[in-house]
């Protein structure tokens, strides 16, 4: 039995010792302990060093609001986590924990020199100190500050754990399983609702776990709790412990993080470590209770100084006395009960110091019965002790102001209570408004647009009976039912208190280490200094001092900070304001946000029916949107340039095969199909005959190019539209948008057929030799099936839509077959073309071949600011059409002004290959910064042209044919001549073969 453990007390299993390590030392705790409670049972309060001053710190709370006791936890090198709250981490056999922010050891830390120099590190220290000289910032200040920043050490290995996620729909979600939450869940479930009840603690019960002496419905609190949980189970309530509601979003969408394995000694590796529940709730009841506030006085951060409620929890829930000789300082009745419980459990309570002049009779009687010295109308002005509090300095508050002479009271723990703040975080996430309660000097929830109710201490109520009654009422209201009867509560230790800024002192307040934000080491003095230096809004005070900006998000410090800032400004707290609460409520792992989306499942990788074949051939792939596409097919040790040159030559001289399955396809069908096409695309469609194709250009209403593709007319009332690979979804959405909102009268419907068809593109002068023998039901000779034709037929016995189109400048066919047959037809074509040297080619070769022809790629040669005229595609505009998307946009003054950037070809004088994205100037000798008149959009080596070719957008480019422009590069300036974009077969004779 460890020295501070009380036999038989608490909810820990006294028969189940659990061994773990802290800073290399073995400790034995009990099943049910947290790291903090287990260490406290051995009298260990010192658990960490503070962030800025490296002051020794111990736990100040027993919950998720803990700012001090942050430790590293570790199963293995990769399974390690910094900044874990010792007050939340349950112990398991073999757990290894370490303290943080100390060197060389927790008890002797050289960084504590900062503490001696604390007068220097005042608010705004970094802003003031590291301003000059400017040149020092990058090389000296920032690296040093970065090296000193941060608590703990992040693991240096990939996280081997996995994380899960679920959506969950429920009628009522109850957050917080204390008395209010339990009653709300019960009431809603009895009304027939689907109910989910969550709590961040390892077990349900909330304040009942720390208040076992209360009797509910005639039963001891814990017997009632067990019976109530059994009843909830019978009613089908899903109770999730170890589950934190981290964020409350629109329309009752609440994110929950459930911890599944961090408390287990030897978890099944198949189990996820954590799970994100995305809950959509019809009604939400927030029953999160209230958070206890520290008092602000010199030395309020020494190990052994902690919240009174925390001490009560350590005693009653974990059976641990936080000290042998305990002093108390409070402005609220609740701390008196903590003192009574400790006295009853065998600790000596040295004194109860209460700043209030009077307290109720029953408190005085309780203290008297236990022989406790009561010092009402007194305050605390300091503490002593290096690694643990050893005494507290107490002064009487004089009636007319001022303090009496100090006295010293020896103690090994000091319990403090500055009152209680309703937990407003989740409510505030809903953009709920808050109301200042002048009597209670606290903010209370006011109004929200969500279907959300607050029950219990979360809205300022106090006591178990009130919480139960309010919870039952709110649960019933959420279920639109009448509230039932609430069990009677006996021995409910209710009470009240006052709120304070920092405590008065007889010493120099500017030298006091009176901490408001423990984790960021912000003192009352810092807050007053910030106001003195001109900060008026609490948002500015927060950023200047970092108050409330640590991982605990100001759960303890926000209200105290506001009180002090308001006092310094001489304003009422609501006039100074409250900082914004933002999700997540408590620190949350990246892993649980990522969920299943990591490794191969990180993002969808779309593959075509030919992908497996390409992979087997050793293709090199590239991502195009969500697709992965074969970029080239290297042979032997070929690099990309050699492979692409070979593939290009095969298409120009023989026959090549290309997987174009990723092209977007939209079937536009219905009597008004042609009218729809006329309105959407720039081109005229009325006279396009069924069986014929046309290049279509799509603009936004701003007149800029959005997409393009070849479109075949299958019948009077049916078009087969193709889009770019990346534009498929976008174009369909845009079409649907216009159809549904602008032209709902048109009888035309759009269906994506992208994935219905596998598309195999055969290109090259020998294409027909390979294809013709495989085609059934169609004559594909040049005369019968000219360029830009489409027809149904069979290919290799499979029903097909055959397009005669070309993106290479050679004779080309795009064979559309149902996707399941794509691979078989591909292989048949490869076999049939073997004698002709048929060559599979990838996207890189496709890019070269199209650039040789001056065919643009939307998104590469255009960037959302390019008009059809700029791109040399003015011919694609149906000038006689009354309207199309972008027609009016094209008439905007700046779109018809001279000097726009226009697409041209570039040939370098030294025959070097330009870099895509390189900037272009007219005069390379002009002073810097030079005027840039354009940039290179496409650039490739071209065997067909015999030299590198490029396309570029250049101001007034169409009027600069033959002129020389310059491309400055880091090592030299490259001169290039502006040309037409059609480098190869400009007359297009080869298409017609």
């Amino acid at each position, binding site marked *: 039995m460890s020295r501070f453990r009380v036999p038989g007390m608490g909810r820990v299993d006294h028969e189940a010792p659990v061994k773990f390590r802290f800073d290399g030392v073995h400790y034995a705790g009990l099943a049910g302990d947290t790291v903090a409670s287990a260490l406290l049972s051995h009298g260990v309060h010192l658990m960490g060093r503070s962030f800025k001053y490296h002051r020794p710190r111990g736990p100040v709370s027993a919950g998720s609001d803990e700012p001090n006791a942050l430790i590293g936890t570790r199963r293995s090198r990769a399974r390690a986590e910094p900044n874990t709250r010792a007050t939340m981490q349950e112990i398991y056999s073999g757990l290894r924990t370490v303290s943080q922010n100390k060197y060389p050891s927790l008890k002797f830390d050289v960084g504590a020199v900062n503490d001696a120099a604390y007068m220097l590190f005042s608010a705004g220290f970094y802003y003031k100190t590291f301003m000059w000289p400017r040149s020092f910032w990058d090389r000296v200040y920032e690296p040093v500050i970065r090296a000193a920043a941060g608590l703990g050490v992040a693991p240096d290995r990939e996280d081997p754990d996995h994380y899960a996620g679920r959506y969950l729909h429920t009628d009522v979600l109850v957050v917080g399983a204390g008395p209010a939450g339990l009653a709300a869940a019960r009431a809603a479930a009895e009304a027939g609702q689907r109910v989910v009840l969550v709590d961040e603690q390892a077990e349900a019960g909330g304040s009942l776990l720390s208040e076992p002496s209360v009797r509910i419905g005639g039963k001891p609190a814990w017997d009632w709790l067990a019976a109530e949980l059994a009843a909830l189970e019978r009613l089908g309530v899903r109770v999730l412990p170890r589950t934190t509601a981290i964020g409350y979003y629109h329309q009752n969408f609440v994110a929950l993080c459930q911890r599944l394995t961090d408390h287990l000694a030897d978890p099944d590796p198949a189990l996820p470590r954590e799970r994100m529940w995305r809950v959509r709730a019809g009604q939400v009841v927030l029953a999160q209770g209230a958070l206890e506030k520290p008092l602000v006085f010199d030395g309020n951060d020494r190990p052994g100084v902690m919240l009174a409620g925390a001490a009560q929890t350590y005693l009653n829930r974990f059976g641990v006395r936080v000290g042998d000789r305990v002093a108390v300082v409070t402005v609220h009745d609740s701390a008196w009960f903590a003192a009574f419980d400790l006295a009853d459990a065998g600790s000596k309570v040295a004194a109860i110091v209460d700043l209030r002049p009077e307290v109720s009779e029953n408190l005085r009687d309780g203290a008297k019965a236990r022989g406790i010295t009561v010092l009402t109308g007194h305050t605390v002005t300091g503490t002593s002790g290096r690694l643990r509090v050893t005494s507290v300095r107490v002064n009487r508050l004089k009636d007319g102001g001022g303090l009496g002479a100090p006295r010293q009271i020896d103690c090994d723990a000091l319990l403090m209570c500055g009152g209680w703040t309703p937990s407003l975080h989740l409510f505030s996430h809903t953009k709920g408004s808050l109301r200042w309660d002048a009597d209670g000097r606290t903010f209370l929830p006011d109004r929200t647009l969500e279907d959300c109710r607050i029950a219990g201490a979360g809205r300022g109520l106090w006591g178990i009976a009130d919480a139960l009654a309010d919870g039952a009422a709110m649960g019933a209201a959420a279920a639109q039912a009448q509230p039932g009867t609430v069990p009677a509560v006996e021995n409910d230790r209710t009470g009240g208190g006052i709120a304070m800024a920092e405590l008065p002192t007889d010493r120099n307040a500017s030298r006091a280490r009176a901490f408001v934000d423990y984790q960021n080491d912000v003192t009352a003095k810092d807050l007053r200094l910030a106001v003195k230096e001109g900060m008026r809004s609490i948002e500015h005070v927060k950023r200047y001092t970092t108050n409330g900006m640590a991982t605990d998000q100001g759960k303890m410090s926000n209200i105290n900070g506001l009180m002090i800032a308001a006092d310094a400004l001489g304003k009422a707290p609501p006039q100074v304001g409250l900082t914004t609460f933002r999700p997540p409520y408590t620190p949350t792992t990246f892993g649980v946000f990522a969920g299943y989306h990591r490794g191969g*499942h990180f993002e969808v990788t779309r593959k075509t029916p030919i992908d497996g074949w390409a992979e087997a051939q050793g293709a090199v792939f590239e991502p195009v949107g969500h697709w992965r596409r074969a970029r080239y097919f290297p042979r032997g040790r070929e690099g990309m340039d050699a492979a692409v040159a070979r593939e290009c030559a095969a298409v120009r001289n023989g026959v090549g095969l290309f997987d174009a399955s990723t092209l977007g396809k939209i*079937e536009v069908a219905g009597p008004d199909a042609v009218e729809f096409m006329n309105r959407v695309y720039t081109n005229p469609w009325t006279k396009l005959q069924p069986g014929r194709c046309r290049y279509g250009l799509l603009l936004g209403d701003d007149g800029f190019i959005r997409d393009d593709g070849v479109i075949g007319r299958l019948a009077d009332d049916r078009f087969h539209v193709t889009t770019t690979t990346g534009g498929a979804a976008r174009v369909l959405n845009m079409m649907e948008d216009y159809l549904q909102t602008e032209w709902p009268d048109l009888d035309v*419907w759009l269906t994506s057929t992208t994935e*219905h068809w596998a598309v195999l593109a055969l290109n090259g002068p020998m294409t027909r030799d390979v294809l013709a023998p495989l085609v059934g039901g169609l004559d594909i000779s040049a005369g019968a099936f000219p360029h830009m034709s489409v027809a149904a037929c069979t290919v290799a016995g499979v029903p097909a839509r055959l397009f005669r189109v070309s993106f290479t400048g050679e004779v080309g066919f795009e064979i559309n077959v149902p996707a399941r047959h794509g691979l078989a037809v591909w292989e048949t074509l490869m076999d049939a073309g073997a004698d002709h040297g048929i060559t599979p080619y990838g996207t890189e070769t496709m890019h070269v071949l199209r650039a040789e022809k001056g065919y643009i790629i939307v998104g590469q040669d255009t960037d959302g600011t390019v008009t059809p005229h700029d791109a040399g595609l003015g011919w694609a505009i149906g000038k006689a059409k009354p309207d199309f998307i972008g027609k009016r946009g094209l008439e905007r003054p700046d779109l018809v002004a001279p000097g726009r950037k226009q697409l041209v070809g570039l040939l370098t004088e030294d025959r070097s290959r330009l870099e895509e994205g390189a900037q272009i100037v007219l005069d390379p000798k002009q002073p810097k910064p030079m005027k840039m008149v354009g940039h290179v959009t496409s650039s490739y080596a071209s065997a067909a042209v015999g030299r590198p070719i490029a396309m570029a957008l250049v101001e007034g480019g169409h009027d600069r044919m033959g002129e020389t422009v310059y491309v400055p590069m880091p090592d030299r300036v490259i001169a290039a001549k502006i040309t037409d974009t059609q480098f190869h077969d400009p007359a297009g004779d080869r298409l017609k073969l």
Partner: protein
Amino acid sequence: MKDMSIDTIAASRAATVTALSPVARFSLRGRGDAVAALSAALGVELLARVGARAQAGARDVLCLGPDEWMIHAPEGDAAAIINACAGVAAPHALVEVSDRELSYAITGPQAAELLTLGCPRDPDSIAVGEGRRTVFDGATVILWRDGRDAFRMDVWRSFAPHVTHLLATGCRELALG
């Protein structure tokens, strides 16, 4: 469509995911007078309520939107469906999408819960015998609920590996309890 050949993707005591054999699929669009005419031509009533299904023989028709239906039928029935609709003069559009999607059966005691890994819609809002178009892990899918513990999922072919990967992960995860 009950006697599909079985190709198991994943199986656990919680749920089983199997790939189903191809079927003929059509997207049918139309409104007004066309609805009754198409119903008569197909021999199946095109129900107006989104999510409702009607069957005639092996033709199973799900209403996906105010003017949109998805038809599943045996492959041998495809030509008959095309011919039937071709005879309807009222404005409509029939587009074959048989090879656009792949279908998977999701069955077992926790089939509905398995869907909650990736589907933001409440599976219990789909009554037995109904269906919905929704999303699963970011991919558009159509869910057909054939029984309390029996769903079918249609997903575009190239999204299928991603979707079935998560379904397989879920089968294992749910079996852990």
